[in-house]
């Protein structure tokens, strides 16, 4: 099968869905400009014209409401935010209007709205360009929350999100944009609410979100060399959540580490820990552990940023403690290599 990047996969999903369904349109700040949201909106203006691919005023709040109204009236809007942080300007429309839209219509009408938002990281993104608000959004009933990791999922889940009849928040990590992998040509759907086993293993389950799956795969390959077998579960969607895939994996391994691409406190990792303790209590060989961002705003300077973000090394060290293993020599390993690759500006 041919290989394409995560970004190209997003773009294919958009082109194919806009070709298939004339009610789909895409909008947001900079969507049709020459940068094309890092390339993810390439060709859309040329193929579908300015009525279906439009730039907007810098009015995130109102433009979210516009998407909601358009969706109520039968369109399928895709609203793009180049950073998740900008979504916070639209919280009223998301949490007070979009989330309760279907409920408020007595279930008779809903809002098939997709909101793409990019999680930034590195090269000085700092505390207003690096947030990862999936847990906040997942907390609010009526919003679906999707976080693809692989290029295949980027395409299949985005198509599913566009075809879904309710508001879907679709979080894309900036660094995943370069990830290259096999992606089927043509239209296909990865169903919302189904997790994916990224790696099979028997000693410990890592439940990871978004970029942390990349770190988890790296950590698992290091640990494999010393005979530790790691299973990696990518839930892919927080809402709806595939609880069974997590529970079955932990029942098999007896151990669970949650590596969330977000702050730990009151985050999705706590939700997974609660789920696992409830469903797997008698089968656990130790407590569930969680890793995520430091409980601080994200700093700008690199050496502090490296302390802010967990990585494969953090995962390896945490698992060693969970399995009561001595620390292995990691001096030959390269960590934070993506930080060296990403030169910004965004």
């Amino acid at each position, binding site marked *: 099968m041919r290989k394409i990047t995560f970004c190209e996969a997003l773009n294919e999903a958009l082109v194919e869905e806009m070709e298939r369904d004339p009610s789909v*349109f895409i909008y947001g700040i900079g969507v049709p400009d020459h940068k094309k949201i890092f390339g993810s909106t390439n060709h859309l203006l040329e193929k579908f014209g300015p*009525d279906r691919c439009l730039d*907007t*005023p810098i*009015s995130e*709040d*109102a*433009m*979210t*409401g*516009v*998407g*909601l*109204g*358009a*969706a*109520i*009236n*039968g*369109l399928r*809007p895709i609203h793009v935010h180049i950073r998740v942080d900008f979504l916070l300007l639209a919280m*009223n*429309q998301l949490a*007070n*209007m979009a989330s309760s*839209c*279907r*409920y*408020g*219509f*007595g*279930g*008779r*009408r*809903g809002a098939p709205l997709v909101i793409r938002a990019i999680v930034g990281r590195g090269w000085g993104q700092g505390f207003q360009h690096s947030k990862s608000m999936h847990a906040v959004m997942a907390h609010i*009933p*009526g919003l*679906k929350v999707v976080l693809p990791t692989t290029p295949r999922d980027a395409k299949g889940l985005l198509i599913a999100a566009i075809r*879904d*009849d*309710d508001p879907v928040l679709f979080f894309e990590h900036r660094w995943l944009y370069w990830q290259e992998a096999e992606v089927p040509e043509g239209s296909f759907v990865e169903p919302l609410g189904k997790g994916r086993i990224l790696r099979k293993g028997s000693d410990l389950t890592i439940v990871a979100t978004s970029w942390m799956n990349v770190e988890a795969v790296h950590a698992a390959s290091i640990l494999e060399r010393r005979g530790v077998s790691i299973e990696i579960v990518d839930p892919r969607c927080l809402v709806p959540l595939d609880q069974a895939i997590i529970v079955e994996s932990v029942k098999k391994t007896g151990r669970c580490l949650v590596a969330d691409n977000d702050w730990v406190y009151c985050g999705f990792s706590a939700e997974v820990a609660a789920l696992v303790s409830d469903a797997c209590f008698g089968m656990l060989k130790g407590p569930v552990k969680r890793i995520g961002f430091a409980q601080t705003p994200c700093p700008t300077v690199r050496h502090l940023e490296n302390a802010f973000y967990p990585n494969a090394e953090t995962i390896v060290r945490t698992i060693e403690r969970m399995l009561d293993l001595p620390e292995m020599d990691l001096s030959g390993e390269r960590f934070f290599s993506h930080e060296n690759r990403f030169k910004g500006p965004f």
Partner: protein
Amino acid sequence: MIDEAIDIYRKLVLIRRSEEAIRRWYGQDEMKTPMHMSMGEEAIPVGVCAALASTDQVMGTYRTHALYLAKTDDVDGFFAELYGRASSPLRGKCGSMHLSAPEHGMMGCSAIVASAVPVSTGLAFANRYQANGKLVAVFFGDGAVEGGVFWESLNFACLRQLPILLVCEDNGLAVHTLPETRHGYDSITQLVAGYRCDTWETDSTDAVVVRDLARRAIGRIREGKRPGFLRCRYYRYLEHVGINTDFDAGYRTEEGYREWLARDPVDLRRRLLLEQGVPEERLCRIEAVETERVRQAVEKAKAAEFCNQSALYEGVFAGA
């Protein structure tokens, strides 16, 4: 022509009788929903809705009894929802503040000031996109103009020249706060007029005058292909939320109320119809019919069942 004016009067009576029934029965504590009463504003939604086609769409605020009844004429659905019964299509999940009936073009309302303005802009965007000829009228108070999202929405509507009528129901009060405590400007209409839209103003309490002005505004929206802004002044008879008067609260006087009451929307329209030669018996018949519709609607609502509690979980997402 006169039949249209009579039907406008019928709507005014329906709304007034409905709210009188709310005042009569609210004390029984069966309508457990915060009531933001429309008394005093009826001419605005009735007038604007009379200028709209039935397929046109509206959105409103938490003060939406008059708008709901003006657009839908569905008094049974209205009381079923206020009583929270299963016979309401909204099944008691919405109450007074979140009434909607999309099959009638009543696309909902928001209890957060100004929040329906961008959603209505989106409805209008979709109507333009689908070239279906539908127009949207969004109702909001003068307080909404203080919210940033109002200006964001107005900007986008004017930028894209969307088919939308923005109706400012100006009672000069944001809850209990007067304009002099809130406004760094003198005229809302002048501010809005800086955008690429047409603006209109009236302080008439005659729904026919409001209708005629709305018709002109709508004509400009359809022909001029630009949004319209209609500011209508009115006096809120009752407290911000609740069924009582509050002239003893000190933020306004009963004299101001008396001045507006002298041209009460329902009484004024009745008087004008009589002056135009409509026989009083015809108006009395209308009043009797609407009074009876309200009485029956209340009776049916009280007799209806509540939803099974499993309904709590229904309607969060499609198919669930």
